[in-house]
């Protein structure tokens, strides 16, 4: 009897072990596609929850990562052209035509591709998605003007598109009685079912880039009005402004579980875009030639798991449960070997290493309204020269991020390769500048030590180490630096309200690849809350140049103005330039990259995956060692043996 039980339990244990699997992902939506081919899934991580799926409302990176594959844009970035970046038609049939009338008024004529459909959804009659037409573009302009939508994109449009500002004023007055049927944006003119004209108050070359942003993605009025977040017939409908999307793109959102995951599913009848056939980089030409001209997207399902910490991302990648990861400080030494190439262990696995360059510049901001730091240019120059971004990059970014020499990052028009920061790291010079600023050895005329306050983000030990690094570098001048710790949201508030002296953890990533997007941060009319000039930099000469430059098309004259503006910023030092973000990404052997364009938030529709290869390799990587179980079993057996013997002796 006892022997039988032992045998049964041994079998049960073996079965249980065999069924055990360390796969953390839920099962895919389907096993096979309609035509019997294997259903392919991409697994990636998302560092934070998205804020909203409404294209006219959401501006944060996480939301954009989710809605980029869901909403197609009028224009889009060519995935393979990154220096310089270039926009190409997506929902439009061709690039917008720029027209200038006899009286000097500018306008763009655009034509939508016919036959683009909204995703099937109960909000449409019969549940079938209808065609996208020119009137939908008018509708999104109306939405931007509607104060209830709280669109953060209104400002640049109101400034440049005829009638936007007036419509916004009228909408504010109308309040809750606002009626979209009678609301009209004067600058929009429908030419026919698909073509429309946008009339401008002044030249607005950045409009083409805005057309590649989700804020100009058409949405269906039916969907917005249907999904109002209220109860209908006893059923609560989701809110379009929060987490519901009826898109036009290659994917639809199949599932969103806050703090867990977002799941995207391929839309069957998507026909809008194909993989580009031009500009293939030579080293990937063979691989990309097979994709050229093919219907997008290539992957059936995308699972974005929300992972806030670095450690699980690395572990899941190592086990093959994520299709790629940005190499961070903690995993750097493991993944990269000498000479910054893949370490032998991962090279053997067939992993790829990609260098990702984000069009962004980071800096330490200074408040020019501050009585000490704002009025003393030499002091700012001294602080800038005392800061060593190269070592910072080495410690915290594994030396991958290049030191920023100018406000504009590489890839943006006007970036100069050979430009040097006149107040780049030079400690001796910094001490001299500090003396000239009136603080020899960090002390003022009365011998009192200069004390500055650095506002920093503190959300973990690494943030604290970063702050300590900044503090130590400034203190080498002989001054005292107090670090005040804030949450991210609090720091943003402080910047907006001007409640800071020096603020670390600032920077700007390009919304669109135009220098105007960076220089607007220093335009005097953009001091918060009107804009993002949180340094409160005011310089009439700079303002004049900005106004000139922002309405120009790229040309040698524009370049000359841009260079002059770079000189002014470099001399006035409203920010201490630190680095341009650049990082390595480790890509799994079954998910070779098809593009490296970071103006897109992932460009998921261009990506490919080889699920069979993944399954095979994953099994290889996750072979559980059995010897710990053996030792455990031996220990238990020994204990039982001992206990039985001891018990017998006691009873004997």
């Amino acid at each position, binding site marked *: 009897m006892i022997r039988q039980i032992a045998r049964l339990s041994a079998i049960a244990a073996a079965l249980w072990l065999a069924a055990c699997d360390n796969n953390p992902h839920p099962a895919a939506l389907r096993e096979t596609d309609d035509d019997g081919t294997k259903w392919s899934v991409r697994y990636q991580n998302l560092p934070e929850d998205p804020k909203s799926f409404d294209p006219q409302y959401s501006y944060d990176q996480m939301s954009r990562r989710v809605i980029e594959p869901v909403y197609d844009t009028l224009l889009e970035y060519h995935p393979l052209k990154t220096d310089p970046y270039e926009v190409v038609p997506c929902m439009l049939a061709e690039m917008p035509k720029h027209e200038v009338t006899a009286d000097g008024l500018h306008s763009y004529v655009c034509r939508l591709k016919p036959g683009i459909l909204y995703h099937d959804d109960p909000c449409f009659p019969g549940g079938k998605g209808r065609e996208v037409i020119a009137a939908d573009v008018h509708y999104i302009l109306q939405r931007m003007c509607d104060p209830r939508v709280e669109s953060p994109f209104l400002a640049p449009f109101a400034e440049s598109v005829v009638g936007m500002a007036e419509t916004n004023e009228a909408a504010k007055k109308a309040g809750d009685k606002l009626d979209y049927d009678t609301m009209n944006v004067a600058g929009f003119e429908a030419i026919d079912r698909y073509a429309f004209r946008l009339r401008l108050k002044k030249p607005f070359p950045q409009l083409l880039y805005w057309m590649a942003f989700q804020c100009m993605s058409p949405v269906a009025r039916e969907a917005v009005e249907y999904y109002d977040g209220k109860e209908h017939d006893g059923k609560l409908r989701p809110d379009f402004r929060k987490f519901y999307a009826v898109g036009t793109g290659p994917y639809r959102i199949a599932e969103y579980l806050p703090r867990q995951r977002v799941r995207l599913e391929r839309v069957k009848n998507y026909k809008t875009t194909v993989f580009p056939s031009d500009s293939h980089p030579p080293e990937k030409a063979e691989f990309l030639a097979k994709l050229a001209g093919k219907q997008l997207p290539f992957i059936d399902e995308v699972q974005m798991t929300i992972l806030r910490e*670095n*450690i699980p991302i*690395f572990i899941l990648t190592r086990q093959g449960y994520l299709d790629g990861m940005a190499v961070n400080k*903690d*995993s750097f*030494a*493991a993944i*990269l*070997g*000498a*000479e*910054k190439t893949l*370490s032998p262990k991962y090279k053997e696995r067939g992993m790829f290493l990609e260098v990702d360059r984000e069009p962004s510049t980071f800096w330490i901001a200074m408040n020019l309204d501050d009585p000490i730091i704002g009025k003393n240019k030499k002091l700012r120059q001294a602080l800038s020269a005392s800061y060593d971004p190269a*070592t910072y990059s*080495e*410690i915290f970014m594994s*030396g991958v991020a290049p030191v920023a020499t100018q406000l504009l990052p590489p890839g943006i028009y006007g970036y100069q390769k050979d430009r040097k920061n006149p107040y780049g790291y030079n400690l001796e010079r910094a001490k001299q500048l500090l003396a000239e600023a009136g603080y020899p*050895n960090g*002390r003022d005329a009365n*011998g009192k*030590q200069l004390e500055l306050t650095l506002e*920093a983000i*503190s*959300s*973990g*030990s*690494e943030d*604290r*180490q970063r*702050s*300590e*690094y900044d*503090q*130590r570098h400034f203190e080498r001048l*002989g001054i005292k630096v107090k*670090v005040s*710790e804030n949450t991210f949201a609090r720091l943003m508030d402080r910047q907006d309200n001007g409640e800071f002296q020096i603020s670390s953890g600032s920077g700007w990533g390009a919304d669109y690849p135009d220098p105007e997007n960076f220089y607007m941060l220093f335009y005097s009319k953009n001091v918060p809350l009107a804009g993002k000039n949180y340094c409160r930099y005011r310089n009439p000469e700079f303002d004049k140049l900005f106004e000139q430059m922002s309405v120009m098309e790229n040309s040698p004259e524009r370049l000359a103005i841009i260079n002059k503006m770079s000189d002014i910023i470099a001399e006035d030092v409203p920010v201490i330039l630190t680095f341009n973000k650049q990082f390595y990404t480790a890509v799994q052997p079954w998910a070779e990259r098809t593009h490296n364009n970071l103006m897109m938030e992932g460009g998921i529709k261009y990506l490919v995956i080889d699920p069979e290869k993944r399954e095979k390799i994953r099994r290889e990587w996750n072979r559980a060692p059995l010897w710990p179980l053996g030792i455990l079993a031996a220990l238990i057996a020994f204990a039982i043996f001992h206990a039985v013997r001891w018990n017998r002796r006691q009873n004997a």
Partner: protein
Amino acid sequence: MKDFFAHWMTQNFLVVAGIALIAWILWSGAHHERWQRAWVRLRADRGGMIALWVVGIYLFIGALELIHLPNGKGGHHSILDVAFANRVALEKTYSAPLSDTLLSSASGEKLTGTHLLGTDTLGKDVLVETLKGCSTALVLGGLTSVIYIPLGTLMGILAGYFRRWVDDLVQYIYTTIASVPSILLLISLMMVLGKGLFQMSVAIAFTSWVGLCRLIRGETMRQSERSYVAAAKALGQTSAAIMSRHLLPNLMHLVLINFVLGFSGVILAEATLSYLGVGSPVGTASWGNMIDGGRSELSRDPLIWWNLTSATVALFGLVLSLNILGDSLRRAFDPKRG
């Protein structure tokens, strides 16, 4: 006023005053027959004496870091800096104990000095940081004790001596505080008060006087029944005099034991708060901050263990010694119960 307290001379004075205060308490206690007997018993207790020595060494290192001297350039630095820390080179980033290259697989850059316990992310010597951590622990323990011991003792004596509504009131206050989970209370206090060693002391003191107060209250009640208190009352002494001249000396040994044991609790609380990110301010060498930093370092490859290990061993050594010493003191003062 702020400048006055931030000045290094003031700090030196306070440190010397603090040490003098402890010395005075011990010296005045030495006249007491009970304390003399306890000292004899303590000397016979081997473990207790070793613990006493270890605590003494920690105190000495902490004092070295706390007392500052002018550096001749208008600034100041601590004795520990002069004697040791200033001579230790600063590196760029991590290096392993006794290694001669940076821990960066790519460059293999040479170090400028040798480091017995390696260096941390910012290239600081871990041994120096660990030693400096002593001072943070001691300042915090000292400041907190200065706040909570008088508070707990006073409340305890008042409640135990007067009883009735005074006792009800004190009991009401401390049961309310005790009913809130102390770590949550600490975090919320830190959020309200802001960061800083003094703020942290106030927060920890606020949660730790309860235990002492209970103990003192009970002992006061017991002592009040004794005949010497009745005699003092019969001679017409005031309540204040009875409490300060007769009751307090008979309670001091409890205060001393509680002080020693409570000290380790405070140090652990600091480590916990720093680990949670609401503790010591940036730039303070603290064991809690080192342990917090070690969290991500343990998942690195290659693993960085020296930072976490040094801080943990230092913390463990002090807390264990304090606990052993506390137990020995209890036995020494109360042989029947020990």
